[in-house]
């Protein structure tokens, strides 16, 4: 086959961490003018490969060839100078500065040491125009939604287009779509296609299979740090892909579909009356029964997280009251809720969940230890037993309690947080987007876990962006819109995602 020469070739890549071989002998290539998906479960090595490519990690073995020349990439700056640009899941820009300033930050056009503001704005506007985006470059970045900020991050990563440096040959997009809605995703795809036509090679990571099939030309699949294969997207269907990623036949997800939800939910566990917080969520009434799974559906920013935070005392309510198990709880701090048996896994794993410098073990026991106070440490043998049990039960990898939690992959970090709360044996578990940014295998595991916890009598408040997920798991679906709980719908065979979407769209309960 007469293939064009790849712009990037990585051969025999090896990367080791203390106790873990994150990548062994992985080959990867990228052709100009293609969108290439990097696929794999959590811990398969996707992030590691990207970090090796972008100079965040140094290589332990293997070679990287860019445009036919062997290169050593020792730092993110070198990667950028070599023409490899990266945009991460979290936008790393300054929201308080204008769009134009963000695009040119660190490389502002200057004359005699002074920044040429007019020129900067004009050139930023040209760049944005050329890429077909409708953005006012003089407005502060924070005035735009996250999706647009992401587009700005891409524009920035492409360089200033004034002939400095080699220009971007390789653009790495690490989960850019995880918090975007459908229209925003389309906007992003349009930009990606335009760049592809200009000959840029795009490496795209996403957990949404549909998106991969919509926009990608080729994909590379990793599993457990090794290369499974490289395929043209049109030659491999979704079932085949999932099988490659998991290394086993499908069925995990089907199993869940067949799973009957526990039908006999028990007595009332939690009751919120007129609970609300100005600027957070309008006062709402909510009742959660023992063993019940309540799913919250609504768009980003509709108040899902705000509702959950009130039930945990993470934010203080300024109206209404909560009673748990018949007793009123003040909810002035998380401690009150924890004491009453409520647990909360935040959607922001890094900033509100993990203590990255501590080990897996320490992170797992933190909530239990906090409830016991500092004077009563958990006995070592009991602690190790508990930690080992949950590492095994949740299949946390690496199964090393001494590993620093900051080095784990996203899905495994999520499992550590789950383990942290499960060992406290809560009555109500609040999960805010527990499956965001994690792969399909771990997603299914977490969903199955929710079902089995509910069977054991634990109540779960489940927040997810994907309606199917909410629908599949919940007894009751709370629909939010514009920071208001607009409907509570009992799940049943006649309830479909479109029905929920209607409620979200109309804001009315039929």
């Amino acid at each position, binding site marked *: 086959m007469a293939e064009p020469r790849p712009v990037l070739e990585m051969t025999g890549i090896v*990367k080791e*961490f*203390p106790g873990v071989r994150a990548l062994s002998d992985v080959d990867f290539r990228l052709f100009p003018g293609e969108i290439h998906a990097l696929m794999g479960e959590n811990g398969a090595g996707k992030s590691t490969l990207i970090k090796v490519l972008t100079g965040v*990690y*140094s290589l*332990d*073995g293997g070679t990287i060839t860019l445009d036919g020349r062997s290169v050593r990439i020792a730092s993110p700056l070198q990667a950028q100078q070599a023409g490899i640009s990266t945009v991460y899941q979290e936008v790393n820009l300054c929201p308080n500065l204008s769009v134009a300033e963000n695009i040119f930050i660190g490389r502002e056009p200057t004359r005699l040491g002074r920044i040429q503001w007019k020129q900067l704005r004009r050139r930023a506007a040209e760049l944005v125009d050329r890429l077909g985006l409708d953005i006012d470059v003089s407005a502060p970045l924070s005035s735009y939604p996250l999706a647009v900020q992401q587009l700005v991050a891409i524009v920035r990563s492409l360089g200033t287009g004034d002939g400095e440096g080699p220009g971007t040959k390789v653009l790495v997009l690490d989960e850019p779509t995880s918090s975007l809605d459908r229209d925003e995703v389309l906007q992003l795809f349009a930009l990606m296609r335009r760049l592809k036509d200009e000959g840029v090679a795009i490496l795209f990571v996403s957990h949404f299979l549909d998106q991969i099939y919509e926009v990608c030309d080729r994909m590379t699949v990793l599993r457990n740090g090794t290369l499974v294969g490289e395929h043209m997207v049109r030659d491999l269907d979704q079932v085949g892909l999932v099988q490659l990623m998991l290394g086993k036949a499908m069925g995990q997800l089907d199993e869940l579909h067949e799973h009957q939800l526990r039908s006999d939910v028990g007595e009332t566990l939690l009751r919120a009356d007129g609970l609300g917080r100005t600027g957070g969520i309008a006062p709402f009434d909510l009742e959660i029964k023992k063993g019940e799974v309540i799913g919250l559906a609504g768009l980003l920013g509709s108040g899902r997280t705000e509702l959950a935070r009130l039930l*945990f005392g*993470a934010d203080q309510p300024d109206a209404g009251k909560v009673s748990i198990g018949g007793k009123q709880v003040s909810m002035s*701090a*998380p*401690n009150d809720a*924890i*004491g009453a048996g409520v647990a*909360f896994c*935040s959607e922001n794993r890094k*900033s*509100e*969940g*993990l*203590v*990255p*410098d*501590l080990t897996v073990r*320490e992170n797992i*026991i*933190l*909530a239990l*230890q*906090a*409830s*016991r*106070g*500092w*004077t*009563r*440490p*958990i006995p070592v043998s009991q602690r190790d037993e508990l930690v080992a049990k949950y590492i095994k039960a949740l299949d946390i990898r690496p199964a090393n309690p001494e590993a*620093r939690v900051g*080095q784990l992959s996203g899905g495994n970090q999520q499992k550590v947080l789950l383990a*942290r709360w499960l060992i406290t044996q809560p009555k109500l578990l609040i999960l805010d987007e527990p499956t965001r940014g994690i792969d399909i295998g771990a997603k299914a595991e977490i969903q199955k876990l929710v079902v089995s916890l509910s069977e054991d009598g634990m109540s779960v408040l489940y927040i997810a962006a994907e309606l199917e997920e909410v629908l599949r798991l919940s007894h009751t679906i709370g629909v939010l819109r514009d920071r208001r709980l607009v409907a509570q719908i009992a799940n049943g065979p006649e309830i479909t995602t479109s029905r929920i979407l209607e409620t979200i769209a109309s804001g009315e309960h039929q």
Partner: protein
Amino acid sequence: MTTPSTTSSRWRALTRHHLFWPVAVLVLLLLVNVPFTPDFFSIKMADGHLYGSLVSIVLFGSPLILVAVGMTLVIATGGIDLSVGAVVAITGALACSYISDQSDQSALSGVLLAMGLGLLAAVVCGLWNGFLVARMGIQPIIATLIIMVAGRGVAQLITDGQIITINSSPYKLIGGGYWLTLPFSIFVVAAVVAVTVVLTRRTALGLLVEAVGGNAEASRLVGIRSRRIKIMVYMFCALCAGIAGLMISSNTSAADGNNAGLWIELDAILAVVIGGTSLLGGRFSVGGTVIGALVIQTLTTTIYTIGVPTQTNLVFKAAVVIAVCLMQSPKFRAKVFGARFGAKGSTTPAAAPADTAATEAAPKMEVS
């Protein structure tokens, strides 16, 4: 890259140990003394006491070790305590002025009461610091600055602006006496370090402190009572400073509100950083801090033994401190010595603070 042999992987494990670089620096500094003082490592027995450079380093370094150990916990919560020097002065002033008022300055009950009074004052200072930081939400550096400045004034009020001298043999024991052939202060330091280690590692205090310092918001959301922990830690730090204050005033049999413990907070912060605890909070190492304090004391001793001219003392000290901090930075080592000594990929938490300390150390040391 060659396949690692057993020895090199062992070497690697050794260099990765969090105490490796502090210990290496300490050993290096000690060795520097040998050409200038050939009997540097010898310890002699005279009058039933052990004498020698090593003994003096520990003896003179005792107050610094105490203050630095307390400081370690404060820094681990993400805070800092600038008031320890003033607390040293207040404690010494109170204890000495109480003793000087007694008819029998050597009466044990009076001395014990004086010490109790001094330490109580220290703990109250710590409570105040903790209250400002944890309850009022004032930045630690500002909150503790208040006692750093005002505390010296309080100490001078207590001593009426004079240097109070006392003549009390039981009090002299703490900082200037001997027990079992060794300086008594070494036993005090050993006891405080042991208590600290037990308190932090045998209970869950250490874990909770590291969690609060490592991620304050996450700690709040798992229900850690971080305010309580912070107040406790500031009180403990002040208590350590108080004991150091007793030791310093006991050693000279005098309370000097102006100069006792002057700038000791800066040396203590430096000792903590050299010991590998991040100024950003999180993981801490009490053992590392002890070694860090010994490094600083050894450096002071070395400056005298190798005969650095007095005028250039502080500049010399600053230069060594910068070198020490650079040596500890994995990034710097990787750059200068190649990948072999540098931590790869996963940088140790000490990396960033060591860098910070290097840049901050110079101006601080010039005033000390």
